[in-house]
């Protein structure tokens, strides 16, 4: 089975330093939803692993997070696309959980859900912690320049073999092109 793991904020939708706290603040980056649709049509399962510490901080509640995700699913459904699984970590840093990226907990959950090995699975993110979480399990880290991507790139220290793409649209085209070569 072919699988791709995506970060949410700054990859699929525009990020905000003040968190995405309501459905109206969730706005897709142009081309990102179409890119997911292309993954669907190319036989990929698409999973999301996203840190949502805003829950622990009380910035928004579960109902709101669900409403935000509902908006995302609906926007994608209009294109005939879909997200196959969505994993989020509601904890804050001080909770010291196993799921908050850069830890790999969510990626392990995803692997177990789909019964696959993360080795070689493209893991797309805009911050270092997204990339290390996936790379720790042997995933293929892909940095996008959207969201915090430029800052992340400037700070350096990316996992070895990280691909750098301008956005999710380019990342997806590269993923599919590499797959065809293999």
């Amino acid at each position, binding site marked *: 089975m072919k699988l791709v793991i995506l970060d949410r904020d700054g990859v699929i939708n525009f990020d905000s330093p003040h968190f995405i706290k309501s459905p109206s603040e969730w706005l897709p980056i142009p081309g990102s939803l179409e890119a997911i649709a292309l993954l669907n049509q190319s036989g990929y399962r698409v999973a999301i692993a996203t840190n949502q510490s805003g829950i622990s901080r009380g910035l928004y509640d579960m109902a709101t997070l669900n409403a935000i995700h509902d908006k995302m699913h609906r926007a994608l459904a209009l294109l005939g696309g*879909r997200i196959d699984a969505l994993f989020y970590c509601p904890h804050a840093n001080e909770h010291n959980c196993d799921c908050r990226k850069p830890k790999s907990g969510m990626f392990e959950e995803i692997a*177990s859900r789909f*019964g696959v090995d993360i080795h070689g699975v493209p893991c797309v993110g805009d911050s270092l912690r997204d990339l290390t979480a996936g790379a720790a399990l042997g995933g293929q880290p892909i940095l996008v320049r959207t969201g915090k991507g430029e800052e992340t790139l400037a700070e350096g220290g990316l996992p070895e073999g990280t691909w750098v793409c301008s956005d999710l649209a380019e990342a997806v085209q590269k993923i599919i092109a590499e797959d065809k070569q293999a």
Partner: protein
Amino acid sequence: MSSKNLLVELFVEELPPKALNKLGNSFAETLTASLKAQGLTAESSVSTAFATPRRLAVHITDIASQAADKSISQKLMPVAVGLDTNGKATPALVKKLAALGADESAVASLKRENDGKADILFLDAVAKGATLAEGLQKALDEALAKLPIPKVMTYQLADGWDSVNFVRPAHGLIALHGIDVIPVSTLGLQSGNSTQGHRFEAAKNPVVLTSADSYAEQLKTEGAVIASFADRRAEIVSQLQAAAAKQGLKPIEDDALLDEVTALVERPNVLLGQFEQEFLEVPQECLILTMKANQKYFPLLNSHGKLTNKFLIVSNISPTDTSKVIGGNERVVRPRLADAKFFFDQDRKRSLESRVSGLDKVVYHNKLGSQGERTQRVRVIAKWVAEKLNADPQLADRAALLAKADLLTDMVGEFPELQGIMGGYYARHDGEKELVVQAITDQYVVKRDEEESASNLVSESLLIADRIETLVGIWAIGLKPTGEKDPFALRRHALGIIRSFQLCHATARFLGEPFKLLLNDLLEFAASTFSMVKIEPQVLAEISEFIFERYRNQLTGFYKPQTLDAVISLSPELHEVILRSEAVKAFQQITESESLAAANKRVGNILKKSESAVEAKVNDSLLQESAEKALATALAKVKPEADKLFESGDYTASLQALAALKAPVDDFFDNVMVNAEVPALKANRLGLLATLHQTMNRVADLSKLAS
């Protein structure tokens, strides 16, 4: 009056497992509802249902032994009928009162009320509250009558004379109120306070209940039975998890199987069994299916989701030496697995391609020919679709050729659920291209789960071809869906087509490729592949309308009805509905939209009323009023701009460009008389409006947005 907890149990022979949970819940719910209706429950009453293979029971707290009396007002008859002119009771009234247990002395106390037509006599009476024995008898009869029994059996009672109809023979009845037995009877049984525990493992037999509240506890300790369905299910889950974890594996997740197994045991004992490694050569779907469906086992998977040769058995008994139980289970599953292996080996001796000719002998529909003929049609259509989608037409043709061939394999004959999946395995074994293998597998993956989509464009071509062939053929022979009836799932096929168009269009746009698949062309091409029936253009128009109607329904959650009306009434291409709806949605956000929509509606009405056809042409020299000149000037500027944006596919910007027309249009209607006396002026003004109308309504019929 005392309020105590009530327990009712009906003890029976093994109930049908697939219906058990439903039977248990229905029994508890109906009985509780009936007691409540009779005033025997309290606000605080809590009802708990129990169901095991051998018993249906319910425990309800705070049940009164006697319902409170209720005053009621009994309607008798109109005053004019009941009393004579002297105010004395008529014979009719006397008779009615006698029937209710009153006599003439009550006449003076009768109440009068007007029901809007006449004065009516009412008798105030007190309805005596039911005793628990009466109330429970009624509730019990009702609960049994309303059980959703899948199939009734008839059996003889112990007297050897009477027979009753029930789901399975019943052998015991408990009705306990606190510690008191409430005398009720049903199915030839009198209520008591004793029941039986586990068929083989009860510590005591019978189990004599000390009170209504000790039911679950006594059944557990003395009867070796977990009476609650939910508790037993949870116990099975925890034992399955523990046993699997010990092996470093996990059981397959299957709620339906879990429910069924919960309905087969009274006290679960999960055991580990295994089979020979060699069977793992058979596709795991076959092995999992046979273990689940025939044996009710839980196959164990490794961390990569691969089947292992171990499985879990949920046994009803817990002997100290479990080897006999395990051995027995392993012995019965072996021939099943051997069958699967035999089918798999035999099937692979012939290629899928060599089986295709056999489809000529399989009937698809007497008016539409054999599966072989259908395959030929789907091939032609799939190839055509593949060309439109820039997929490989030869591979689409190949996938369509082989798509149904696995119908004729032994494995699919034995396990019809594996259709498609087996086709994929055999195609891979035959050395078919991977895209073809995926296309064959996808057909049924998509059918089973609507969320799924085709995993490549060859697969998408096959899917679209298969669906459109079904829609056109079935519709043409007069089997279109009516009301609730849709035996060929045409609604689902229509939704599938829509989904495919959306997805293919989104990806084509993303890749900057033109989208060449048009619904009407597709319908016409599909129709041309039928030779046995002639497909009338009317049929295709109906199917197109049917698909758009489904789409409209689907989109009502996303757009306002007027938005969809405005877009769909112009019959756009299927894949453009969303783009145009988004554009209209954005247009509705701008301040000018409302008055432009109203103006558009007005223009439409004026043009409709015109006796002769109006040509959308303006002769500048005939423009007189400054307002009409201003409109013509504005239009001359906006029209090319809006048209250009429209042609480039930027519908949102095309509609936004119309905003500049608001002021001149308003001005025009304020100052210009369209129906001028001079015919040439009038014709020119109509021509101006027609041009305006054309310009505005390319993306959507904006008049539909007017309130």
